[in-house]
Structure formats: C-alpha cells, structure tokens
C-alpha cells in the first residue's frame, strides 16, 4: 500500500514538473516579458534594445523568400555597414498571410518588430489596428521629399492625404505570351492582344491539342486588376477611400465583363485552368501548355529565364467598350510599430530612407522584378543595361506610368480583403465548372458583404 501511494506521489510530482515546464517552455522569452511588464509600469518611455556594440538593434519582419530574401538580406547588411548607429535584423516570417497572423497576436506589444512588411490588402487592417505609427510623421519631421517617389505607388498607401506606410516592393499584373506560338498561329508576335475580344480571338487561334490559348491564376488579385482597368469599383464609398465601405459592388457590368470574358474562353475550350498555385501556372507556360497568361511583374525575370521560347510582355487586356484606366499596385509596404522606443523608430525610418535611394531600388528592381519605387533608379546604368537586354521589364514600368490616378486605380480599402479574395476564388472555380457568371459574382458579393458587415459591426 505504502509503495503504491509513494508511486502516485512521484507521478504527481512528475506531472507538476511537466506542467511547470510547459508554462515556462521558452527560457529566453520569459525573462524578457517580465522586464517588459516592469518597464511598462514604470513609465511611457521605452528603452531601446541596444546590442553589445552600443548600436540600436531593430527587427524587420518580411515575407520575401528565395531570391527576394537574399537580396533583402544583402540590402540590410549594406545598411548596417553604411552607418554606425543602427542595426537592422531581417527576419523571414513566412507568407504575407502568415506574417499578418503572427502580427495580429503580437501587435501593439513591445515584442512587436519595429519594422514589418505587410501586403497591400492588409493596409486597411493595419491602419485600423492602432499598432502603427504613420510614416507621414517622420516625413514631416525630417522634411523628406516624397515627390522623388513614384506617384502611382504612393497613391495606394495614402489615405486622406497621409502616407501610412513606406511602399517597398510593388508589382503590377502583366500579360505574358509565347511569341513563338504567336508566329506559328500566324499572329503578329510584336502586337499583343489589347482587349478582351482580341484575347478571345487570339486564344482560339493559338489553341492546339497541346496548348491552351489563355490562362489566369485563380486568384482574386487578377480579378481586381481586370475590374480596375475598366474603371470599375470594388466596394462602395469610392472604393472605401471616402469612408468606411459598407457594400461590395464588383458584380456590376465591369465585373460581369471579366467573368463573361473568362467564361467565353472556358466554354470554347481555349482557356486552361491551372489552379491557384503560382508555380503551376508558370510551369504550364514555360512547358508550352498555355500560350498567354497573366503574371505579376515580379515574375517576368523568371518567365524569361525558364522558357525555351521568346517571351512577350504586354499591358493587361480591358473590355472593348471602355478605355484603359490602368492598374492597381500590388505587393507590399513597410510599416512602423507604435509604442516602441524613439531610437528604434528612428532606426526604422533611417532604414526606410536607405531603401528608397535610387541605387538600392535599382538593385532591388533587377534582383526581383519588383518596381523601383524611386523612378530615378531607372536612370542607373545597371538598369539601363538590363532593360536593353530584356525590354519586357520596361513594359511593366510603362503600364504603371500610363495609369490614370483615381480611386479606381488606387485600389479598394477594406479590412476583410483576404476573405473577399477567397470568395472570388470560389466564384471563379464555380464559373470554370459551368456556373452562370452573374450568379457566382452575386454570391461572391454576398459573402464579401457579410464579412464587411461583421467587420463594421465589431469595430465600433
């Protein structure tokens, strides 16, 4: 009996130990949070994190993998060596969505990174969150000249005349096509189709047993772009820029045009559906399974390199009866945390300024294919050389600079964009299965409206 009870006791002790270990599993993090609590009680003034060399150290959360990450690491290293007061530590946090999820749980605390990269459709969420310091504050204090940056990019991230975040990696959609296939089909490889009707016509000629005429990644972004280039709004209240959007309006004639355009080709059998994965559609293009597709401008370099044929780049198509309005900026921008030490904010600001210099932007543009947000970068020699070799890059820059600034091409501001994009994906998938274009659009609007309604209800 005694022995049995002793055994139980030991077990209980063991369990308690495990429990203690669980609650305190991260020995590094624990003392830090204690210290935070103390410092917050003592006063508003936050201590900056200073490393052993006496430099102010800040974290920079980003979502760039692969080549983008390498380039970004090199840029941060360059910054750290360029001056002796600040150290920026870039940390890869997964996809844009994953980064935002982590941010949601840590945002507003002192553990939040000083600098973070958030995708364009997270803009409204970030502004509403209260976690961030608008960069406008530093622009004003520092007398930073914004006019040197690309106006069409700044437009997206400006709300009520205030710039909330520093644009960083910006991309737009572009129509890529297989010039060799155009020649074989008897089409002019130097003249890409411009309107929906042109694309429909070209894809019926390009279609062979092996190759589809046209494809588009099943992703909400492309729909938003095709809508905007016709001048269509995504949500009411001037795309959410004049006030809080309350309703989605993308099921109007412009939205329907897009869905009919895709539906026509799908029914004719000239549209290839390669799903929701970027790599799949890119592989399909470079292996000759589709002759035309829409990609991000950041994908051009890769498309040219991995395709065994000549690749053409063109503006994205628009409906025949309307004129071209241009494109919305995609990509991400850099946000600064609120509630951290002044020196840390200053470090973040210095890094932002460094990033927007023409030399760094030129390097970034060539490494990744993202836009240079500072157009002076295009005057750099390395850019000129590369453009001479790959004129496709220039098409995307021209397309952006031809864009007419308006609330349409500024892009919609809603906090529930990820959910809305999911609705569009479902609508497109149903469309490809033969559903009615108007009906699937209406369903997507309904789903988006519910999300907007809940967001407005809970954020009062």
């Amino acid at each position, binding site marked *: 009996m005694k022995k049995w009870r002793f055994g*139980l006791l030991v077990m209980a002790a063991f369990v*308690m130990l495990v429990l203690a270990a669980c609650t305190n599993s991260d020995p590094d993090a624990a003392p830090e949070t204690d210290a935070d609590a103390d410092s917050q009680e003592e006063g508003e003034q936050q201590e900056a994190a200073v490393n052993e060399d006496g430099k102010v150290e800040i974290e920079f959360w980003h979502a760039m993998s692969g080549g983008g990450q390498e380039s970004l690491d090199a840029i941060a290293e360059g910054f750290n060596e360029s001056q002796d007061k600040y150290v920026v530590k870039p940390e890869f946090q997964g996809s844009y969505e994953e980064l935002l999820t982590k941010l949601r749980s840590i945002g507003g605390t002192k553990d939040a990174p000083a600098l973070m990269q958030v995708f364009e459709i997270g803009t409204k969420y970030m502004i509403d969150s209260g976690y961030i310091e608008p960069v406008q504050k530093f622009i004003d204090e520092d007398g930073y000249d914004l006019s040197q940056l690309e106006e069409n990019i700044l437009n997206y991230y400006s709300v009520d005349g205030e710039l909330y975040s520093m644009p960083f990696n910006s991309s737009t959609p572009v129509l890529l096509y297989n010039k060799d296939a155009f020649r074989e089909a008897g089409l002019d490889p130097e003249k890409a189709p411009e309107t929906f009707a042109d694309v429909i016509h070209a894809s019926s000629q390009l279609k062979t047993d092996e190759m589809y005429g046209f494809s588009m990644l099943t992703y909400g972004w492309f729909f938003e772009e095709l809508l905007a280039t016709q001048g269509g709004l995504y949500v009411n209240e001037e795309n959410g820029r004049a006030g809080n959007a309350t309703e989605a309006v993308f099921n109007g004639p412009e939205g329907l045009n897009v869905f009919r355009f895709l539906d026509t080709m799908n029914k004719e059998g000239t549209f290839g559906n390669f799903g929701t994965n970027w790599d799949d559609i890119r592989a399909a293009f470079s292996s000759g399974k589709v002759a035309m597709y829409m990609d991000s401008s950041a994908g051009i370099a890769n498309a040219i390199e991995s395709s065994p044929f000549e690749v053409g780049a063109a503006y994205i198509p628009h409906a025949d009866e309307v004129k071209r309005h241009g494109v919305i900026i995609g990509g991400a921008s850099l946000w600064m945390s609120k509630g951290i030490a002044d020196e840390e904010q200053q470090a973040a600001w210095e890094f932002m300024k460094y990033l927007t210099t023409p030399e760094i932007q030129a390097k970034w543009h060539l490494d990744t294919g993202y836009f240079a947000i500072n157009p002076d970068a295009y005057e750099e020699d390395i850019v000129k050389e590369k453009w001479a070799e790959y004129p496709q890059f220039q098409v995307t820059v021209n397309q952006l600079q031809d864009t007419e600034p308006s609330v349409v091409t500024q892009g919609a501001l809603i906090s529930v964009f990820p959910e809305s994009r999911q609705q569009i994906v*479902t609508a497109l998938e149903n469309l490809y299965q033969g559903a009615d274009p108007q009906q699937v659009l209406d369903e997507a609007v309904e789903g988006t409206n519910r999300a907007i309604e809940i967001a407005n209800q809970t954020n009062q």
Partner: protein
Amino acid sequence: MSTIREGAAQVPAEKRPGVWTRTRRGRTALLYLLPSFILFGVFVFYPMFRTIYLSFFLTDQRGDAAVFVGLDNYRYLLESAAFLNSAKATILFVLYTVPAGVVIALFLALLANEKLKGIGFFRTVYSSTMGVSVAAASVVWLFMFHPSIGMFNRFLALFDIGQIQWLLDPDWALFSVAISTIWMNTGFSFLILLGGLQNIDEHLYESAKIDGAGYFYQLRRITLPMLSPTLFFIITISLINAFQSFGQIDILTKGGPAQSTNLIVYSIYREAFVNYQFGTASAQAVFLFLCILVVTILQFKFGERKVHYQ
C-alpha cells in the same frame, strides 16, 4: 489504509467524527486527482469552454469577443450552403478513407504475417509511411498530381487515356486527397494490425488445421474474431483522424477547387486564421466536436458488441 486507522484513533470515542475527518478519504483522493484535473483543465477544458463561449459572439480584428449574437452563428452555419457543403465533403471523405484504409492495412498485415524469408523487409516497407510526415508526403503527392509534369498524367498519356485534372477538377479533388490520405494512414494501421495478428495464439490455428479447416475458414472464424479488439481500435482512430484531416488539405488543395475539399477542420482554420471570425469558427468547432462525439458513441454502442475480448 494505515492513515485512516491513525485518523480514527485521534477522534474521541464518544464524539461522532467531524466533517473534516469524515471526508478525509475523499480529500486524499482529490489530492491525487489534482494533477490530472489541472492538466485537463488547462489544456482541454479551458480551451473547450472558451470555444463554446466564443461561438456565441462575433469577434473583432484582434479576435476578442465583441458583439453577443446568441445562437446566430449556429443558425448562420446551418443555413449556409458553404458549411453544408463542408459537412457533406467531410462525410464523403470519411467514407472514402476509413473503410478502404482499414481493408488495405488488414490485407497487408495478413500478407506480412506469413512466416517467410525476408518478411522483415516487407514489414518495414509496409509500415514505412508512418515515418513520413503529413507535410512531406503531401508535397510528394502534389508533384505526382501536378497537371503539367505530374507522374499520374504522364502515365495516363502512355496509354493514350485522357488527362485527369487530379486536384483541379472538383469531381476528382476529394478523391485524390483521399488516395493520398489512405496512403499516409496505412502504415500506422498496418503496424497495429500486424501486432494484433502476432498476438493470436498459434495453438488455435494448429487445432483448426487438425480439424481440417481451410485458410478462409480460419480467417473468418479465428483471425477476425481474435483481431476484433485491434480492428475496433483502428476503426475508431481512423474515423477520428479522418474527421480531423488538415495538413494534406492545406498543402494539396487549400480547400478548393470550388470548395470541394473544404472539410470542416479546414473550414474552421480558414474562418479563424484567414478571416479572423473566431465566432463562426468556434461554432463550427463545436459542431464538429458533437459529430465526432455522436459517431464515437454510436460506434461503442453498436460496434463494440461484435468485439470479442479474450
């Protein structure tokens, strides 16, 4: 029980023992149970009650309960075509994966139970899928299902059969995910079933042989009844696993195309961590919990009757 006797000795004979003393046994028992109460409380009951609590609210962008809506989240779910579709997909997925998975594992276990030279090699191979993580296995299958460069489509092309859009055609996607899931789960089921087979007493087979029973007669009258506790365990675990499948969905289809593989667990994830609607996500979680509970109870009620315990 020496403590009790010692305790009793301290109480004066003429007085009835007080409440404190009388509950001594109960208190001792509670003390021993305390650790598991704490563990369960922190890691099971608190999250569970929190989920139920959240399911009555709409949450704001930080995921805090913001607006009380009563049963509206549940009402919305039951009226929502998307959720009913998720429920249907989940049931189909369970039906695709559980019976096939168990039968295949049983078949392999019966094969590997034979005493042959080099059988160890086959036993290792058959159970090897257990050592592959869901993520790694899904990526491998992703390549095999690939529309342009996938192995399956190339194989079909060899025989001039039309190409199948494995993961892009809503009619095929759930089936494709089910195939890869069966493959992933077979290793574990195989190993447990093989263990069960090895535990069956050899003498039973020897006596049956002397009586002139054939292989299939032995299988039906000796192997399956003796294996039934293991089979019951495997079926229960497979069912619960199937209901909770997540990783392969996330990697292979992300719930698409056209919601055809949006199983309830994946739908919960998306609602909670993409859309940040913890309220509706919690309501779905409660719903899934009730489903699994009912299925498990039914199984114990009807399935266990057939189980033969030694």
